[in-house]
C-alpha cells in the first residue's frame, strides 16, 4: 500500500452556519410565529419583521446525483442557493420573497416532487434499507414506501387529517424505521433454520447465544463440530440472532410476514410519548405492491380521518375511542397475540373498570 499523503481532518459533522440562507442567518433564533398559507407552504415571521416562505416537497429518499442536482437547480433559481432536507426525507426550500412561492411550487412539481407534507397531512414515510442494501431484511423498504405513498398521495398534498400522520416501514423486526403513527414491520413466524455449514466459521457463538432475548439458543455439536441449536418451543421468532450471526436463517419468503403497528408518538405534545402497538400481523410479504398491507393501512387512515378529533394523533384517537372501538371501526381482528406477554406485560393489562361500550 502506497504511503498515505493526505492527513485526515477528524472534523465530525460538517459546519452548518455557512449552509444557511442569509435571511435565515439574520433572523436566527428570532422567529415569532408561523402559519400555513396553503398545504405545503410554511410562512414564518420574525421579531425583526422579516418573513420567509418555505415550500416543502416529497422525495424518494433513495435518490441519485441527478435528482439532487435538479433540486439544487431549483434552489439556485428561487432560494439563492440554499435548501434543506427534513428528518423525513422531504426537501424544504425557503425564500424571503413571497413572489417566488408559486413558481417554486411549480418547479418542484414539474420535477416530480409533490408539494405538501405540512401540518395535518400525511407526510413522507420513513424508510430503511431493505433488499437494496441491508444484510438482514425480510422485505424491501423503498418498494413499500413507494406503494403506500402512491396511495396516500392526495393526503400528502392536503391538510385534512386530524393531525400530522407519520408513517414508517422497516424491513426486519429490528425496526430501524423507528416508531410511527402507523408502521409496517416484518414479523417472523418461524424459528431460524441453522446453517451449520457456515456457522462455526462466520459467527461468534457466545455472543449469538447472548443475543437471544428468551435464551432459546444453546451450544450443541453437529457432526462432531461445535455449533448452535434453537429450542423451538422457547423461540419467539424475533430474528435478533440473525443480526449477530448470518447462519441463523430466520428469513423466509412465506414465513416472514408483515405486521402493522400504530400509535407510536415521540412528541410530548398533550399525552406523553408512547410506543406503537401491534394491530395486525401475519400479512403476506407480497411484492411489489403489498396490496394486503396497503389495504389495511388505508383502512386505518380512513377510520382515523373520519373519527379523529382535531389535534388527535392516531394513537390518541385510538385511546380516546378505545382499542375495542379501534378494532371495530377498522375491521381488523384482535387476537390473543396482541395481549402482551413479555417482561412488563402486567402494565398493559386493563387494571381498571374503565371499559367502553
Amino acid at each position: 500500500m502506497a504511503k498515505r499523503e493526505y492527513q485526515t481532518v477528524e472534523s465530525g459533522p460538517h459546519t452548518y452556519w455557512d449552509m444557511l440562507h442569509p435571511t435565515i442567518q439574520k433572523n436566527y433564533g428570532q422567529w415569532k410565529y408561523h402559519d400555513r398559507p396553503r398545504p405545503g407552504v410554511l410562512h414564518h415571521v420574525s421579531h425583526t419583521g422579516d418573513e420567509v416562505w418555505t415550500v416543502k416537497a416529497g422525495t424518494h429518499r433513495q435518490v441519485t446525483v441527478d435528482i439532487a442536482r435538479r433540486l439544487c437547480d431549483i434552489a439556485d433559481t428561487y432560494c439563492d442557493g440554499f435548501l434543506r432536507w427534513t428528518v423525513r426525507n422531504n426537501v424544504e426550500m425557503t425564500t424571503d420573497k413571497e413572489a417566488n412561492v408559486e413558481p417554486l411550487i411549480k418547479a418542484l412539481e414539474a420535477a416530480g416532487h409533490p408539494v405538501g407534507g405540512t401540518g395535518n397531512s400525511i407526510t413522507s414515510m420513513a424508510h430503511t434499507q431493505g433488499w437494496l442494501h441491508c444484510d438482514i431484511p425480510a422485505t424491501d423498504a423503498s418498494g413499500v414506501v413507494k406503494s403506500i405513498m402512491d396511495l396516500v398521495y392526495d393526503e400528502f398534498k392536503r391538510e385534512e387529517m386530524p393531525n400530522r400522520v407519520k408513517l414508517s416501514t422497516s424491513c426486519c423486526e429490528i425496526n430501524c424505521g423507528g416508531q410511527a403513527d402507523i408502521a409496517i414491520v416484518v414479523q417472523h413466524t418461524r424459528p431460524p433454520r441453522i446453517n451449520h455449514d457456515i456457522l462455526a466459521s462466520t459467527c461468534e457463538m457466545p455472543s449469538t447465544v447472548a443475543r437471544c432475548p428468551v435464551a432459546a439458543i444453546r451450544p450443541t455439536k453437529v457432526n462432531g463440530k461445535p455449533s448452535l441449536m434453537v429450542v423451538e418451543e422457547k423461540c419467539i421468532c424475533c430474528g435478533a440472532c440473525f443480526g449477530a450471526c448470518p447462519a441463523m436463517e430466520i428469513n423466509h419468503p412465506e414465513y416472514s410476514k408483515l405486521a402493522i403497528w400504530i400509535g407510536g408518538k415521540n412528541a410530548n405534545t398533550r399525552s406523553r410519548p408512547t410506543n406503537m402497538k401491534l394491530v395486525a400481523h401475519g400479512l403476506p410479504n407480497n411484492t411489489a405492491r403489498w396490496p394486503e398491507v396497503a389495504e389495511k393501512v388505508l383502512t386505518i387512515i380512513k377510520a382515523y380521518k373520519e373519527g379523529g378529533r382535531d389535534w388527535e394523533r392516531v394513537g390518541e384517537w385510538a385511546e380516546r375511542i378505545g382499542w375495542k372501538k379501534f378494532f371495530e371501526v377498522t375491521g381488523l381482528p384482535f387476537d390473543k397475540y396482541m395481549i402482551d406477554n413479555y417482561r412488563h406485560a402486567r402494565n398493559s393489562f386493563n387494571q381498571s373498570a374503565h371499559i367502553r361500550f
Partner: protein
Amino acid sequence: MAENKLNPTPNLDTLEEGPWPSFISGFKELYNRTGNTMVRGVLDQLNYSYETRMGYWKGGVVGVHGYGAGIISRYSMVPELFPEAKEFHTMRIQPPPGLHYSTKALREVLDIWEKHGSGIISMHGQTGNLQLQGVVQANVQELFDDLNKLGWDLGGAGATVRTGASCVGPARCEMACYDTLKMHEKVLKYFADLTHRPQLPYKAKFKFSGCGNDCANAIQRSDYAVIGTWKDEIQVDEAEVAKFIETRGVAYLTNNVITRCPTNAIVMNEDGKSITINNSDCVRCMHCLNVMTKALSPGKERGIALLVGGKGHLKVGNMLGSVMVPFMKMEDEDDIEAFIDMIDSMIDYWAENALDHERVGETIERVGMQQFLDAVGLEANPDMVIQPRDNPYFKAPYEKVG
C-alpha cells in the same frame, strides 16, 4: 393482679385522651363491667408491647369440628408475664352482605359472644369479617355452635376462599348497577366448602362493588373483583342538566365536569354553554354522575365487569385486578350461576397451576394472559388491556404455506 382491678397501663393511658373514640377506654369499660380477666391480660400485654415496641403473639392451630379454617389462633409468647393473655383466639364470622344488621340479630351475637369470649370485637376486619377477638380453645366449639344455630358461619383464613365484601349497593345507593348483596350472598354460599377447608394454593377473595366508584375496594383487595357497569347510554335528565349549568356556571362545568372526564367524552357544544356526552367514548368512570347526581344516572342495560388478580404486594408489588370479563348481565339466578361456573373454571386452573402461596393474579402474570384465557375458555378482548402489545416478542402459529 388477681384482684378484681385493672393493672396500671401507663403506656396506653395517653390513648384515652383526645376526641376520637378510644379503644383502650372501651376495653377498660368492658373489663370493669365483666371482670373478664382475658381483657385485663390483653391490656397488660399490649402495654408491654407499647413499652418494648415488640409484638408477643404467636400462632397455633385451633378449629371447629369439620372445618379447617376460620379461627386465627393466638398464644402469648410471654405467658409467664401475662398468664391471663395465654390464649386469645379470633373467630371470623361472615356477616350479612353489606354489613347490614337488625339490632335483634346483632344483640344475639353479642350475647353469645359475651358468654363464651372476651367481649372484644373487631367490627369489621379489613376483609369483611365480624371478628370476635379473644376466645380460648376450650370455648371455641360451643361459641361456634351457638352462633351457627342462628345462621352465622365462619369466614375464611389461610389457603381458602375468603369472606366476601360488598358495598351497600341497591339497599341505599342510586349508582348500584347490580344487586351486590344478593350476588355476594349467593356466590359465597356456593363457595362455603372452599371457605372452610384449605384446598387452594393460597387465599382467594371476592368483593362486590355496585359501580366504578368501587366503595368495596374490590380492584386492589380482591382476586375476583365484581364491579357494576352499564352498556347503553348514561340517563340524562335534561332539565336537571340545564339547572346545574345555570346554577354552577360554565366555568364550573368546564373545570369540574368537562375537563375531568378521562376520555374527553364530554364536549362543549357550539353554543359554549351546554354539553354533549359521547357515550361510546365514555369509560363508565362515574365522575360526571357523581358531580351531577340529580341530572345523570347509569344507563339501563346494567351488569358487571369482572376484574381478576387484585392483591397486596407480596412478592411482585401491589396488583390491581384487570379486566377478564368486560360485561355480563347479572339480573337473575341464571346469571349468577353462569358467573359461578366461570369462576369455578378459573379457580380450577389456578389450583392446578399455581405455585405455593401464589395468588391468581401472580399466576396470570407468570404464565401469561394468553395461556390463562385459553385455559379458562375466554376469548381475547381488547377490553382486557389498555393497549395491544408494544413489543414483537410473540410467536403466532405458522400459517400454512403452499
